[in-house]
């Protein structure tokens, strides 16, 4: 029988999302262990969440946390830097270190038969990094070179300028790599001291998901992290004051494209509005068919893509819109984004079919994000970091489904518009500044040396 092409096929009811239950234990020294045995491929994913984020950088040493984390696997225990990397490579894996605002994660996925050996290496890295001077000098120089190169990277400049404009001197107001003056001044003693204070096991969580039994994990963790120091728990970050609304134009002569960011303060990951924010963002700018991408890319052809997102943290996070647009479309694109932000909290709320599509999309797509053991481990790491309840995953779909248009409207009015926004445009100021000013959206500051944000 021929296919009916007069309409799209119906989509049936989605299966419930499966998420393993993690068993918990604790290692001497305070490290919490959460493990879930998952059969299938002979591999295991490991993530160590340490409560050392960029928010713990001292005010005059931005980048210290990232530098410390980056040096921890440059030699540890009896192994120098090269020998340590080679040891991971022999196990067919490598360590990935990610420094965020609230935590640093160390992670790897490894063939199951090498699980114990790889975990032992991780334990040595966390508990006994060597911090040798030669490694410190090299790593610091590499970071200074990276900062130098970022001068010509519009997305990096825009991100930093945005953080700085929204947060000011708040601990969330800088990039992970810090800046040239802090990296010039930093000393090896500061790194060593920061490691002892910020990278301890108290408050840290080890997540293991994969084809290894709970007993094996607990035994291996006890051995690997036996000598891990406790360290200091991080202080809560304060609530930042609202920024002065402004549009910052950073001059990049002759740039054919303008890198754009719009941002405002939002709330924490623990907010009771979380599910409403996820739905709201999906409809507004979270995926391809969202309002803002449809407008700027598919209707106007200004950009390769535009997205929004809530960057929620343990402390006050952000709402951000980011895109890169053709130079001569800069002011119009900026105006379009502001129009969409105000409309979603006013003239054109997310409701009816549009709301139904967003919630359905999230409900149906949720299982996709938990396909691999690495994805499951990352989800578990988020739950540990933010103290989310164990049934967070199982409750997600019902909670999203239960949201009403009123819930979304309230969330939009509170967390999207109105609000003091900061916009950053990295582009050819000689061509884009005047059109931006003529929009009359508020104060416009021109910065002729964008690289100053990196100094």
């Amino acid at each position, binding site marked *: 029988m021929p296919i009916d092409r007069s309409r799209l*096929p119906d989509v049936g009811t*989605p299966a419930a999302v499966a998420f393993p239950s993690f068993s918990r234990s604790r290692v001497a020294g305070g490290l919490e262990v959460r493990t879930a045995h998952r059969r299938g491929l002979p591999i295991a994913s490991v993530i160590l969440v340490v409560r050392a984020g960029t928010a713990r950088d001292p005010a005059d040493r931005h980048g210290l946390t990232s530098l410390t984390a980056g040096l921890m696997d440059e030699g540890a225990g009896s192994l120098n830097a090269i020998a340590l990397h080679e040891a991971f490579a022999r196990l067919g894996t490598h360590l990935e270190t990610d420094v965020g605002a609230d935590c640093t994660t160390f992670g790897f996925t490894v063939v199951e038969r090498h699980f114990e050996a790889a975990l032992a290496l991780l334990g040595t890295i966390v508990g006994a990094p060597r911090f040798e001077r030669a490694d410190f000098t090299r790593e610091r120089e590499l970071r200074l070179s990276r900062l130098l190169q970022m001068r010509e990277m519009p997305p990096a400049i825009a991100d930093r300028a945005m953080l700085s404009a929204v947060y000011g001197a708040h601990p969330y107001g800088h990039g992970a790599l810090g800046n040239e003056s802090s990296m010039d001044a930093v000393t090896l003693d500061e790194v060593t001291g920061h490691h002892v204070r910020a990278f301890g096991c108290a408050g840290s969580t080890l997540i293991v998901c994969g084809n290894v039994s709970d007993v094996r994990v607990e035994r291996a963790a006890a051995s690997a992290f036996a000598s891990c120091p406790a360290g200091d728990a991080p202080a809560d970050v304060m609530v930042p004051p609202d920024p002065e609304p402004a549009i910052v134009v950073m001059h990049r002569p002759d740039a054919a494209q303008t890198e754009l960011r719009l941002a405002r303060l939002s709330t924490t990951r623990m907010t009771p509005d979380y599910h409403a924010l996820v739905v709201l963002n999906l409809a507004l700018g979270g995926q391809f068919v969202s309002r803002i991408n449809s407008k700027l890319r598919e209707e106007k052809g*200004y950009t390769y893509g535009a997205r929004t997102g809530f960057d929620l943290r343990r402390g006050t996070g952000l709402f951000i819109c980011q895109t890169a647009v053709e130079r001569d479309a800069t002011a119009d694109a900026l105006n379009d984004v502001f129009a969409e932000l105000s409309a979603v909290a006013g003239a054109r709320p997310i409701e009816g079919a549009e709301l139904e599509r967003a919630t359905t999309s999230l409900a149906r*797509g949720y*299982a996709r994000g938990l396909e691999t053991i690495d994805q499951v481990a990352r989800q578990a790491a988020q739950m540990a970091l933010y103290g989310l309840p164990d049934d967070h995953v199982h409750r997600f779909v019902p909670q999203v489904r239960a949201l009403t248009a009123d819930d979304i409207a309230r969330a939009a009015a509170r967390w999207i518009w109105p609000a003091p926004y900061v916009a950053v445009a990295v582009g050819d100021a000689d061509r884009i500044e005047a059109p931006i000013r003529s929009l009359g959206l508020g104060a416009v500051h021109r910065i002729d040396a964008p690289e100053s944000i990196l100094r």
Partner: protein
Amino acid sequence: MTLELPFVRETLDNGLTVLVHEHHDAPLVAVNVWYHVGSKNERPGLTGFAHLFEHLMFEGSKHHDKGYFGPLQDAGASLNGSTNADRTNYWETVPREALDLALWLESDRMGHLLPALTEAKLTNQRDVVLNERRQNYENRPYGRASFALLGALYHADHPYHWPTIGWPDDISAASLTDVSAFFARYYHPANATLAIAGDIEAADAIDRARAFFGDIPAGPAVSPVRPPAPPLDARLRLVLEDRVELPRIYMAWHSPALFADGDADFDLLGEILGGGKTSRLYKRLVFDERVATELVASQASREAGSMFQVIATAAPGRHLAEILDIVDAELSSLAADGPSEDEVERVKAQAESAFIMRLQHLGGFGGRADQLNAYQTYLGDPSAFGADLERYLRASRASIAGAAGALLRRQRAELSVVPEGQAAMALAGSTPAHVV
């Protein structure tokens, strides 16, 4: 443990190859379509078409004349497509209850795209592509280096001479007539393969594939494009001024084609030279002598001939010529003595892990469905997963030494990318590269 990717294959009457892989761990199904067309099927003056087409394929077809992202994202799917010199792929990973939706849409754009293709869509997506080009190449440090290298290694009418994204003038000039002719020639069942992987029975999947795709007419046979790539007859030294802070050297050689003899050895050579912090060049250039800040060495494998590259960014105050000397010294040492047993064991362990990790995802770029289509398209044999890994496990100190020796004997292109106005930072004797 034996690593494999089991499948069932069926060829429909119209020539469409259908591959099904059952995997019931998660309630998901991956749909993946490869068209054996890429930028190497284009001609000078009409470059960027395969990629432009990738964009247009998401803009609607005869029976669903609006965006493809809408219904699929509403159904919880992730989806995307990509184009390179050799092939174009499209995929959707859907909750299993949305499989028919994905098959309906994929078959509609394979069988019924042109009636829905309009001047307005073409104009809009031309602009989007020009913005993609600005974002990923023109406004990105070192972004145009690959254009210069391809231009240097391949003569002007070789189809690897131009980048997949195309030349801006060609993209701007793309007409509805040209674009339609390109579609008719390449986007049809006989030049495509469909893979379905995941939580579905094989027989059921094949029945559905036949129902949705079976009535699409077979198109004209497409002959393989395998133009010879003549070796360079002399070393080429080029310089490109760019908005960068630190100079960077690109060394590029012709190397064995994808799956040809030696391809895997060059891949492993890339790992030994530049794969992470344990590699020879990283140790010497970045760790010990601190002459460079970043390093890549890799085999970019392609159907009609590959390119082996070593890329290194100079540390502040250091010279590209210093880097070049060290690379040549390490190549000479590898060619003469081969890598150590330990190095070979390490890169083989990494390769084996990488193959296991590749089995984690059903869909998406590099997932199970994508791999089946790759083996079918390039080798005519979807069962090649195990044999592919074997290529790496068979490599030896001698075979990798042979790859290094081949690089030493061959002429190469050396491109210096330097800060604007600093042409003197380039290798001596470099001539300006012309890129758009």
